[in-house]
């Protein structure tokens, strides 16, 4: 029996749903082997993870808290990815957003929470946006590879944060702990009802809806969809590629910057080192698993939030290293990317194969 890979004539309507699910399942299976090798019962481990992430009110709240920055950063990178701009700088954009929000909170004591939080929001969006826009400008006018520039800017942002919390912004009463003073209460994002979930998730969900409208209902969203799918057609239509690259990178960075504001104002209530455990990187996987669709980003962010919380649970109850959830994340991305092939090709088992005429030659003929 022969297994051959053939080009699809028509896309299967099921593929967009099936591909992420199959990728997840495969990642879980491979990770089970790793659990086994580490001496743990994979079924028990997965159960622990699931219960830890979704098994109680407390667990669900913890998952939603972690999903919030993932939704925001995931929306951001998905916007850039849609235009084939590989922004892997969400982590740095999150950090500068946190810095900007903290600057507002620490220097301007507004009595009105709404004004205070509103200004923090704008400052974070602007800072993250500019942080994303710089690689965008370099890409648009100099052709610099945005993968490298966005990645390098992550380090600048993270070390800038360290500098601030060890140096000029250090809490004078905080002994030697590297963090700023606590924000004024007016700069805290309120909790939702009597849960531990803060208002950041509301901001995130509003931005999901706005992103969806922006991408599917507006002229500019149309330009982005065309530019990402066919650069030549965009040029033929007269779209300004440089402008769109810069704008999309600004938008992408701004969303990640807002995640930074949401984390500082919602959880830590101060700027501190290591405020993100790599949300900006996990967001890349979140966005891919969601196939860049804003609404699907919510689902995939909650899943990954659960993965992070579940990983912590695993550490507590089975004393497994926390890196297990990193391994699982990596495997999921691996299989999601591998699954891309199913969109344009199908795997055929049996039947004719071998020396078929090369279909590419059709064009010359």
């Amino acid at each position, binding site marked *: 029996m022969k297994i051959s890979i053939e080009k699809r004539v028509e896309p299967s309507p099921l593929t967009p749903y099936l591909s992420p699910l199959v990728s997840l399942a495969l990642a879980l299976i491979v990770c089970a082997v790793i659990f086994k090798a580490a001496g743990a019962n994979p079924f028990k481990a997965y159960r622990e993870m699931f219960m830890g992430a979704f098994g109680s009110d407390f667990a669900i709240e913890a998952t939603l808290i972690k999903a919030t920055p993932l939704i925001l950063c995931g929306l951001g990178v998905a916007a850039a990815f849609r235009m084939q701009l590989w922004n892997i700088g969400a982590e740095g954009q999150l950090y500068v957003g946190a810095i900007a929000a903290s600057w507002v909170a620490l220097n301007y004591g507004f009595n009105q929470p709404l004004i205070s939080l509103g200004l923090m929001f704008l400052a974070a969006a602007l800072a993250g946006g500019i942080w994303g826009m710089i690689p965008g400008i370099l890409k648009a006018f100099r052709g610099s590879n945005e993968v490298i520039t966005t990645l390098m800017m992550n380090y600048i942002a993270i070390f800038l944060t360290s500098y601030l919390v060890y140096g000029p912004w250090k809490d004078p009463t905080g002994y030697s702990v590297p963090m700023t003073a606590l924000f004024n209460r007016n700069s805290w994002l309120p909790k939702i009802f009597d849960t531990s979930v803060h208002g950041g998730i509301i901001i995130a969900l509003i931005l999901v809806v706005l992103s969806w409208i922006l991408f599917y209902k507006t002229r500019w969203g149309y330009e982005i969809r065309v530019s990402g799918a*066919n650069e*030549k*057609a965009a040029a033929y239509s007269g779209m300004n590629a440089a402008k769109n690259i810069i704008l999309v990178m600004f938008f992408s960075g701004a969303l990640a910057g807002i995640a930074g504001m949401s984390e500082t104002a919602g959880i830590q209530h101060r700027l501190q080192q290591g405020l993100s455990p790599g949300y900006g990187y996990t967001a890349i996987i979140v966005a891919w698993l969601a196939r860049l669709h804003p609404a699907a980003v919510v689902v995939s962010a909650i899943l990954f939030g659960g993965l992070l919380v579940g990983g912590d649970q695993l550490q507590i109850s089975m004393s497994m290293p926390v890196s297990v959830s990193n391994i699982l994340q990596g495997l999921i991305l691996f299989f999601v990317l591998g699954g891309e092939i199913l969109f344009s090709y199908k795997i055929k088992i049996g039947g004719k194969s071998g020396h078929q005429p090369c279909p590419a030659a059709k064009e010359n003929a």
Partner: protein
Amino acid sequence: MAGGKLVEMTDITKRFPGVVANSCVCFDLVPGEIHALLGENGAGKSTLMSILSGEYKPDEGSVSVEGVEARFHSPQDAIKLGIGMVHQHFMLVRAHTVMENIMLGLAGTPFFMDRKKLEAKIMETAVQYDMKVDPGAYIWQLSVGEQQRVEILKALIRNTRILILDEPTAVLTPKESETLFTTLRRFREEGRTAIFISHKLDEVMAISDRITILRSGKNAGTIRRDETDEKDLAGRMVGKDSLFEVKKSEKQSGGEILKFNDVHANNDRGIEALKGITLSLREGEILGIAGVAGNGQKELAECLFGLRKIKTGTVSFNNKDITGFNPRKIREAGISYIPEDRIATGLVSSLDFPDNLILNSYFKLPVSKGPFLNFKYIKEWTKKTIEDYDIKVGKIKNPVGLLSGGNLQKLILAREFADNPKVVIAASPSRGLDIGATNNARKLLVEQRDRGAGVILISEDLEEIFQISDRIAVMYEGKIMGILDAKDADREKIGLLMGGIKLGQEADI
């Protein structure tokens, strides 16, 4: 009968989805000849040679080498028999050196390569054929001509007896072409054989011993060079048959609407592709631009439409200079462009029908209002377009990449004609379409002309050019070889111009 024949290809038929590339083609080679394969683009030259070099398997017919039937499963099998092909698009690893490229896939290469030995061999071969190369140079540092030399060396070092060169001079300067011919003649002196694919008549006459002409996938004759001339070849190359019928009324064309004035521009490789184009278009006429592809037609269209930088010279529209305008401003002025590569440029194949319909008008009323797209209008427009142009769409939400070529072309034409443009530039509008779709596309172009628009029709298909043009210009190597009134033009004259031969009596512009 195989006496003395080195290669015999008999009744070769090769089909690709929707097209027969070779239909019962016979072709033979005798040892020690340079055999030219002449024909327009799409005539099936490259396909036939890809079969000889083992890349494609013929659907029907047989290939024999020295009287023994050869069944090639891959190019490796052909290489073993001494058949090597230098493709139009080079198969070189740009980040590697000349030597690394030559040793790649070289039979009998040990795991640890004796670089000195190979280098010596390369130099020896290079001197023997008078080809200058630096084995240590990286491919990306080399000019196109030098890269071609590397490809030829690659073949020579593999002891190629039959060297196939696919349009080798298309990328060369005249001087480089001369050097190539010297190499080829030396190759022939050693009793080896070369196949030279070309559409340039003067080169074919200069270098070959025998000439086989392909037309629409069929053999249109194999002749000795000394028994033919350029006129004869041109006639055979472009043929005389007719399949299509489009009614066209006699019509007086109006005043000048568009003018190219001494336009120079480079192609994507930075080589000058337009060498001083001066051309004018009148209202209500179809100006056909004939010529074999790659002679600057694509660049001409792109320059007009603002997609390519004009180095020197101007384009004016209604006596207004539009040089350097971007595509949107040019379209807003009233110029429409139907690009040659429908899928690659004219459409976004992963988006749906409405998204493609609005590609060139999404930014203005009524297709969008303020920042928002006007979906109500878009829906109505889509419905009307599908009815008016009789487009078979299937599910509206499907990506348009699934539509047939004819339906895609209707979509593009509908979109481009929506605003009643004053000038239409259409590049190969019927390429790859079946008879019905072809007639339809031509009919729509004639309608635009009758409405008063000036139409520039770029096509390699002379049938198409003759059928609907009012005047015919021929491009060759980035220049206008001549402009004829359609009434005065015949296939022979156009064929000669296409092959780079100037006419005695050139019509005035």
